[in-house]
């Protein structure tokens, strides 16, 4: 192996957390003082994610080949989806639905259901656009690990990491994402307290989520107040805010 290949081996072990503590420290020190090694590390990360993406693509292509060569598709068997579905069974269900319609309607329009329904239609976890993460984060810092679990929607795991992170970095966006974690875990009061403290670049987003949180808590007055502010602005939340306000009136 030449020097370059040895460096690749070392960095590969470093990124996969396969080195001893002493070796990891040695690599970290080298990375601090050798910009060329940092470049190789970044390139290696790109290559690994590219190889993974290509592997995934290969698997998909293989399945497409199975579709065409091995196992005929439903459509090729001369069966349309509509014929596969047992429509006759639906007639019975339809009759039952008509009978139960009015009782369901009154239940559906109650405040609790309205809150659930609206919240369910509009709540979507905000994408992580701040901290890039990758599959193996075992050797990365607290912030990367918190966002790694966030990306995987593992909010129970993400919550303590964000709480720990906030003790060392009280940045606006970290508080914002922590608020989203709390909402995903349905800790609504704490989510409101955290999101209401978010300012600057994430105010709009925070207000949108606070409005949804208020809806879920059936606090429609507070929700309307926040939504009106969003409706007046020119953000991408404006139309949704308008829609919800109509539904709440």
């Amino acid at each position, binding site marked *: 192996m030449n020097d370059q290949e040895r460096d690749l081996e070392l960095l590969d072990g470093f990124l996969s957390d396969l080195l001893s503590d002493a070796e990891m420290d040695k690599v970290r020190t080298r990375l601090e003082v050798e910009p060329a090694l940092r470049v190789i590390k970044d390139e290696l990360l790109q290559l690994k994610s590219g190889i993974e993406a290509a592997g995934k693509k*290969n698997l998909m292509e293989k399945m497409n080949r199975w579709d065409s060569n091995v196992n005929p598709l*439903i459509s090729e068997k001369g069966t349309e989806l509509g014929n596969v579905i047992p429509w006759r069974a639906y007639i019975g269900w339809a009759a039952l639905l008509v009978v139960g319609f009015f009782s369901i309607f009154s239940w559906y329009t109650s405040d609790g259901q309205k809150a659930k329904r609206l919240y369910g239609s509009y709540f979507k976890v905000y994408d992580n656009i701040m901290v890039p993460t990758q599959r193996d984060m075992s050797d990365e810092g607290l912030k990367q690990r918190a966002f790694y679990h966030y990306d995987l929607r593992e909010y129970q795991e993400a919550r303590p990491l964000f709480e720990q992170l906030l003790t060392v970095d009280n940045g606006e966006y970290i508080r914002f994402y922590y608020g989203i974690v709390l909402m995903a875990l349905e800790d609504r009061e704490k989510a409101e307290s955290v999101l209401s403290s978010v300012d600057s670049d994430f105010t709009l987003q925070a207000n949108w989520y606070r409005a949804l949180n208020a809806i879920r808590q059936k606090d429609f007055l507070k929700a309307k107040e926040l939504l009106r502010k969003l409706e007046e602005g020119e953000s991408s939340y404006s139309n949704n805010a308008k829609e919800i306000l109509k539904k709440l009136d």
Partner: protein
Amino acid sequence: MDNTRLIALIKEGNDDVIQNIYADYRDEFIIWANKHHQCEYEEGREVFQQCMVQLYENVVSEKLTVLSSGLKTYLFGIGKNKIREVREVERKKRIEVKGGEVTTEEKLLHESILDKVEVALSQLGDPCKKLLELFYYRKMSLVQITDRLDYKNTDTTKNLKYKCLGRLRKIYTGRN
């Protein structure tokens, strides 16, 4: 075949098992997705392929080692989440179109990196391409790869792996 054996075979990279699972559940999934989530035929098929990829990746990364429920329940569970994700992406796109937003630069950059690596991989060719895929995507050990690609021993495989990686990097960056 019991689930433990099934997982072991997927982990070994047994394509026949993966193909059997695909053939066993594909149609049922497409019908289920149409009935319960109004997925068109092609959409259902694509989502099912994504479910299979997810199943495979969870097994090889050892996120999935035991199936407490049945395989079908597990696959359809993934499918339900995938459909939800697809709907969310569609909704987001609609909002972006309305709001006049564009795809983020970071996303484009990430996609262009993946495309560039893919081109470099195809220039690299086999057996290097195969070896790197088996190691980094299929998460096979050097012992398994040595056996599968019929190399002399694991040291040979390991040396070759870094030679291949070095060559790939050279093609990818255009530097020595």
